[in-house]
């Protein structure tokens, strides 16, 4: 007798629910509150507590003010990015030297010493090893700076203020105010941002937050933006202003992403995901001085290493694929060359080229490897000297050398701008896609979330390219 006969209880509950009426929920909540306040009356005495509350509310007045709120947000984002860009340069260079200039030749020598066949040596050392090394050299330093800074801000209590500032914008676009928090998480990693949407109660608003999270520029895409902005945007202005110009360009792309997030939230909530905006209480926690070293430690362990590990796991097979498609021939053309040539026409329409499009296909597992893939494919397609051989991913010692290769590959300012735009507006990485599927449990919404940004990217880059060419 597993199933108990409870039909009469359920029937009774339905009848009683009818009797007590609609305000059941509210009056229950009210009586709980009344109870709580009575208990507190008997046990809590408050002294003169104005002082510390005054400091908190003074900070809040500035941080969430209508005039200063947004400029301050941009300023803080700017400072964090600036520290990341400047600070990451040196350790990146050192790691590159160690892993690429020192270890790589050693490995090659070791491989020939034990008589490894050329294809296995190329596949493992030039493909897998170099991809992993590149990801470590380029990603570890900025992450080791960006994540702790972000975590310190988080521990201090700034994130809820960001949510507070952006709440009415999200509301206007028909989304949930807490989406501001998931958006902020997305700036670190979109997969983490998608998981964070669980704090949103309504399924409709949660779906909107999941679908549009990809418009938060993630950690794997910041380096691409920074590199291209430094090479192409910084070069347009006099050299004294070049770092300021490239920094503004990167922030501009991030803000554009936020704009697209609002736009698509608005569009979705007006069409397929119609519904009421739900209200919620957002508690502004007190400012707490972060426990500095502990925060640094946990953010390094929890975030940096986990994201890095993921990047390595995906970079290794991608490196192998790049090496394979450059070394397997159909007729007298390698698969890579054949793909580049077939994609060139479409790429031209978008102000991009076949190399970029192929790189974005190869780099679906991890956004971090887009730039090295582009460089490698460009060297191969143009036949210019440089790099280490066919299908070998490499990192160039200086930004100028990277610039030379890209320019030899036919890059113009338009190409750079459009790659920056396309880096913002393209499909999420495979981890994020998988996370979206796990969170929504729906193939349909996973496809929507994956395809929507690519289509947006095609449309925007196409428009920019056409207008640019007409005006230029």
């Amino acid at each position, binding site marked *: 007798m597993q199933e108990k006969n409870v039909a009469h209880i359920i029937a009774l509950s339905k009848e*009683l629910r009818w009797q007590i009426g609609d305000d059941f929920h509210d009056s*229950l909540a009210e009586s709980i509150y009344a109870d709580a306040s009575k208990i*507190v009356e008997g046990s*809590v005495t408050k002294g003169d507590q104005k002082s510390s509350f005054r400091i908190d509310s003074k900070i809040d007045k500035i941080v969430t003010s209508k005039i200063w709120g947004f400029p301050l947000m941009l300023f803080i984002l700017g400072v964090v990015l600036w520290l990341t860009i400047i600070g990451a340069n040196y350790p990146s260079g050192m790691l590159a030297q160690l892993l690429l200039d020192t270890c790589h030749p050693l490995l090659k020598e070791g491989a020939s010493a034990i008589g490894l066949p050329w294809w296995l040596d190329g596949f493992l050392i030039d493909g897998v090893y170099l991809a992993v090394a590149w990801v470590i050299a380029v990603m570890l330093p900025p992450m080791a700076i960006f994540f702790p800074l972000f975590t310190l801000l988080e521990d201090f209590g700034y*994130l*809820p203020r960001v949510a507070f500032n952006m709440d009415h914008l999200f509301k206007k676009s028909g989304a949930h105010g807490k989406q501001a928090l998931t958006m902020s998480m997305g700036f670190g990693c979109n997969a983490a941002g998608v998981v964070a949407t669980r704090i949103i*109660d309504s399924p409709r608003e949660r779906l909107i937050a999941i679908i549009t999270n990809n418009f938060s520029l993630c950690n794997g895409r910041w380096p691409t933006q920074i590199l291209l902005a430094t090479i192409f945007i910084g070069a347009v202005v006099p050299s004294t202003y070049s770092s300021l110009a490239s920094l503004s360009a990167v922030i501009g792309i991030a803000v554009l992403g936020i704009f697209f997030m609002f736009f698509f939230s608005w569009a979705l909530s007006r069409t397929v995901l119609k519904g009421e905006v739900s209200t919620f209480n957002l508690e502004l926690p*007190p400012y*707490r001085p972060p426990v500095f070293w502990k925060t640094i430690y946990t953010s390094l362990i929890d975030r940096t290493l986990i994201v890095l590990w993921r990047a390595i796991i995906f970079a290794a097979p991608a490196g192998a694929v790049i090496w394979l498609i450059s070394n397997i021939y159909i007729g007298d053309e390698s698969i890579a060359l054949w793909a580049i040539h077939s994609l060139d026409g479409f790429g031209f329409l978008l102000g991009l080229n076949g190399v970029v499009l192929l790189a974005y296909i190869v780099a679906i597992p991890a956004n971090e490897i887009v730039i090295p893939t582009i460089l490698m494919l460009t060297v191969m397609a143009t036949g210019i000297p440089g790099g280490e051989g066919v299908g070998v991913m490499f990192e160039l010692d200086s930004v100028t050398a990277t610039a030379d290769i890209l320019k030899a590959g036919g890059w113009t300012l338009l190409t750079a701008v459009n790659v920056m735009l396309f880096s913002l507006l393209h499909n999420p990485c495979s981890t994020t896609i998988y996370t979206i599927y796990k969170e929504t449990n729906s193939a349909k919404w996973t496809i929507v979330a994956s395809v929507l940004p690519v289509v947006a990217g095609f449309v925007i880059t196409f428009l920019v390219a056409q207008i640019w060419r007409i005006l230029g």
Partner: protein
Amino acid sequence: MEKQPHSACDTCSHFNADGLKKLGVQIADFDFVVALAGNPNTGKSTVFNALTGLRQHTGNWPGKTVTRAEGAFEYDKQKYKLIDLPGTYSLLSTSEDEEVARNFILFGKPTVTVIVVDASRLERNLNLALQILEITDNAVLCLNLMDEANRNQIEIDTRALSRDLGIPVVATSARHKEGIPELIQTISELANNKIQCTPRKIKNIPQNISKAVQELSASIEKEYPEISNSRWIALRLLEGDTQIVEALKTGTFI
């Protein structure tokens, strides 16, 4: 540096510091299940880390823990599995995080529930505490962030609070590891039935509702005489909670 006692209790003979072992994620063969519940941003994850020795990331924003995290510690040769539930303001709504918390306390039947509250915001936090006490009898109120409350010159009479709520109250400041030994001691006494709780049930419910609840819980108790939280189940039934209806059929909450 590690030799320094974090609080007077570490050196007190009543606190068995040698009996405490932080087990991190080794959660096999536990004797008791302890749930950590509370409002968002009250430092549940910090308490969790202090108890288990784990370093789960903590953040100063409400809603950081969206899934439940698990860890373990050993005290006096008994193993405790600890579940860090997502922070919620109440247990009455339909959002996923509240559902996780509500269902775990009801269906997971933790031996002890630690209700973590922000001492400076006690009134707002008690809202959730009172709801939890409707579901479970064995609970302890962890009055966390005491350092902030002291700085704000808020004084709390823990004995009066404990009497009013009918459960033990422990003042802590988990960030600085203060009060954690006392909390562990209280959890162990609760788990071994050395402390009896007589939790306060929600009063002041309007006449028509309390009559309906009484009638409904009486009929539930007729079918399930052994349960103590029939009032909560009645409240959920009036709310139309489909999971409760399902559980009622199969009797999973016993």
